[in-house]
């Protein structure tokens, strides 16, 4: 259904094209990628890689394709191993850690966006937020010290897009503000204040006046903040 929708519309904004393509392609390629992972995993096992070690060529490939340093990748490998069930530790490449286990990590435990983070980085077919090791590396890479502003703002946009439709509309913004201000009663904004706040946000950031904030407008707002890069960081 999504495919048909995007084929009919002339989607000319680059963020949306990208968004549509990635979702489409990744939806198509999930099973293939899983099969491939299993294939590489089997070759790894036949090559004699032990359970707790990352093969060198894979390590260098991860180093090239992510923003993580070698030590960070090895530490991520170790921490991911600890999260896996004992029987899954033999094939770290193909196993997925369920979301509730990922959320036990101390770095994510108290983060109000923890569920969205898991869902955004997860490439699982079931859309249950479970992460494979490569998804976990993706997460750490986006939140690392050396990731660029473009990458960070891109993933921030996806995290804030609670309904995954490619834009931040009123519902998304309301959920975002509620996440930020916390769950306690005394820290919530009243509905009147929420309406005012959302109107102000849209006024400031919605350039094409369509009632939503798309990726480019979001990146435009974020580029004015020099502190975003330093605050959008998680380190293991």
């Amino acid at each position, binding site marked *: 259904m999504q*495919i048909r929708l*995007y*084929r009919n*519309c002339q989607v*000319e*904004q*680059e963020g949306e*094209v990208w968004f549509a*393509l*990635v979702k*489409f*392609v*990744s939806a198509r*390629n999930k099973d293939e*990628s899983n099969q*491939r992972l299993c294939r590489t995993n089997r070759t790894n096992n036949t090559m004699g890689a032990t359970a707790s070690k990352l093969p060198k060529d894979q390590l260098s*490939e*991860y180093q*090239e*394709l*992510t923003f993580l*340093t070698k*030590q960070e990748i090895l530490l991520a490998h170790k921490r991911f191993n600890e999260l896996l069930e004992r029987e899954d530790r033999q094939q770290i490449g193909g196993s997925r850690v369920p979301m509730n286990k990922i959320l036990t990590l*101390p770095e994510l435990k*108290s*983060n109000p966006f923890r569920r969205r983070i898991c869902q955004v980085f997860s490439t699982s077919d079931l859309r249950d937020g479970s992460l494979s090791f*490569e998804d976990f590396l*993706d997460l750490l890479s986006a939140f690392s010290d050396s990731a660029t502003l473009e*990458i960070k703002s*891109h993933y*921030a946009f996806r995290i*804030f897009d609670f309904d995954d439709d490619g834009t931040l509309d009123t519902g998304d913004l309301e959920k*975002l503000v509620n996440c*930020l*201000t916390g769950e*306690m009663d005394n*820290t919530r904004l009243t509905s009147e*204040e929420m309406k005012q706040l959302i109107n102000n*946000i849209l006024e*400031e950031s919605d350039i*094409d*006046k*369509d*009632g939503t904030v798309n990726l*480019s407008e979001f*990146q*435009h*707002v*974020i580029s*004015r*903040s*020099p*502190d*975003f*890069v*330093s*605050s959008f*960081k*998680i*380190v293991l």
Partner: protein
Amino acid sequence: MACIVNNGLELHSEHSEDSETSSDTDDDFETVEMHVMDNNKTELTSAFTRNKWSAATQKVLSSMPSRSVGWSAAVLSQRDHSSVRDSSQVPGTSNRDYDMESHEGLIHEVPRMRHLLRTLQTLPLDECVRKLRMMPMSLTEKSELRALLCRERKGQILSVETSRNSHFQVRLRKSLRGARQGVHSLLTSVQLWHGTLKKVSGRFGTGALSYFLFLRTLLLYNIFLSLIINVFLVLPEVIHHPHHSANKKIFMGLNIFTGTGILTDSSMFYGYYNYTEENNCSSGNKTKPYNSYNIRLAYLLTIGTGLFATCIMLVYSVFRTLGGSFHMYKSHGNLALKVFSCWDFKLSKMTSVRMQSENLCTQLKEMLYELHSGNPKGKLKTRLIWMALCFTAWGISLTCIFCCVLTVYVFSEDRENVSNIGSDENLLALPLLVCGLNHLMPSVFNMVAWMESYDSLSLCIYVSIIRNLFLKVSTLAVLCYRWMGSTATPKNGTKLECWETFVGQDLYRFLLMDLIFGVLHTIFGDFLWRVFTQGVLRRKRKPAFDIARNVLELIYGQTLAWFGVLFSPLLPTFQIVKLILLFYLKRASLMMNCQAPRKAWRATQMTTLFISLLCFPSFLGAAAGITYTMWRLEPSSTCGPFRMLSSMFQAGREWRCLTTFNPSLTWLSWAYTVLENPLFLFTIAGVFLLEMVREE
């Protein structure tokens, strides 16, 4: 259209808007607005109205700075001069053959994607991989794409003709990048205090973390400097010329504080580094092998090299941090910015997270209230009162600073005459006074700042930093005048036997007093203040960690250390010990006495400010002082390696001796004559820095 184009970020300005498209776009925008105003059909029609935009509108929209700043810059490097730059790019995805038919229709609608893939294929593999890294695809897809590109590359014969120049440039860039990555990986593998810093940032956020990171940076600079000096200067002197002082002095406890007594002739100070006749260039006949270590040259060169390398590293870090924080901060229109970018993801402790949520809620409510209730400061009377208060506060601060400086000047004048200095304890009086003032005045400035209520927190912090900086710079200036003026070349009274050692001891005393006062202030000041606010004033919140004040104290101490390295070569080592002690003390104090601040600390801008303060007044001032001392002041004639010279720089001529005695070192003298020209040095350093910055 004007309101949209009016941004400060015109990165790609090569698109001229054709006059004929403007009328089309105006119509399109009018259509959008009409629909949006109709509340009943907002959602439905807005989605479809966008699709009626013409190709011209698309082209104009795609050239908007907000669009071009993202992907064109990230995906395709501007240096490549590719023709794809004119349209917004879409990051590609794997296009295996068996998938092509299934989504071919979609790919045909986005011909740019194929163009991107084709462009990726023409680039060298490592450039490809670099660009892949910056695309927001999942890791699985990236490795597929990379494997595909690798496979295709193996089958193809690259017939790319590259001229010799670009080949050389590519190689140079590659080697520079490799060197930079090697250094970066080396530095990150030495993760000093990683666990502690993570705990601090998890509880207190990015602000307090920036103080500890700054401390760690200073520690690394000092380790580097002391390594060079210890290996090339102190160790050879200690090994080759172990001294026994003529009159054996008894070690007294007070000597640690004053640096006098037995420590005077130790390797800590300038006077230890003796210069014997056999090192003299003109002495001896040419057949005698020149195998002794020329301590004069070593002294000059190690300090010069160490300081020069520190300068390069400082300027490089200033450039790096400056790039990220060049943003014009608007005073209003920041609600969206606040909501989107102010959440600190590093916080991991539940109480801190809750506190951040509370603070954010309060700030949002305040900002909303200010926006919707008109501007209360608009009244003339309130503004006049506010300005009067500001003037009073500034007047009080400047008067205080002037009084402090005058006190220091008068007090140090008493010490001009050597015979006035009685026992050793009196030597501690001036450092005590200066450090006492340095620690007392910031509290006075804080009290004065209560009077003024600034609109923004950052303005408040900047004002406090400026005042503290004024105070420290003026006291340091007076002290330098004393040291370089009266102590080195006294107008009346007897000249000190070894004035460099005296100045070195003075600086050592200052640093030690700074450390003692810092420790006492942390233990008694922070701890007692917390007990006072919670017990007596019954406030619920603990006090916040005063980042600006602590960082300025660090910068002050480092200035003293850099200035004193000429007179006391072991001072960087002492500074290392002091910084390690301060780290653990401040961390303990932070955990016990403080809590996360109420308002967000603008970490990037503050880090830039602190590094710039470290580079510009601090390091440059110290280097200027050292240069003046070496160039103009006459070294004392009875002690030290530079006696019998009219200035320390003249020792540089000893290079020529090395070559006459050791013919294999002729290249050194050639190098020296080249390096003697400072223009050459700066040109090389500038080219190197530019290349590094461009790589960023």
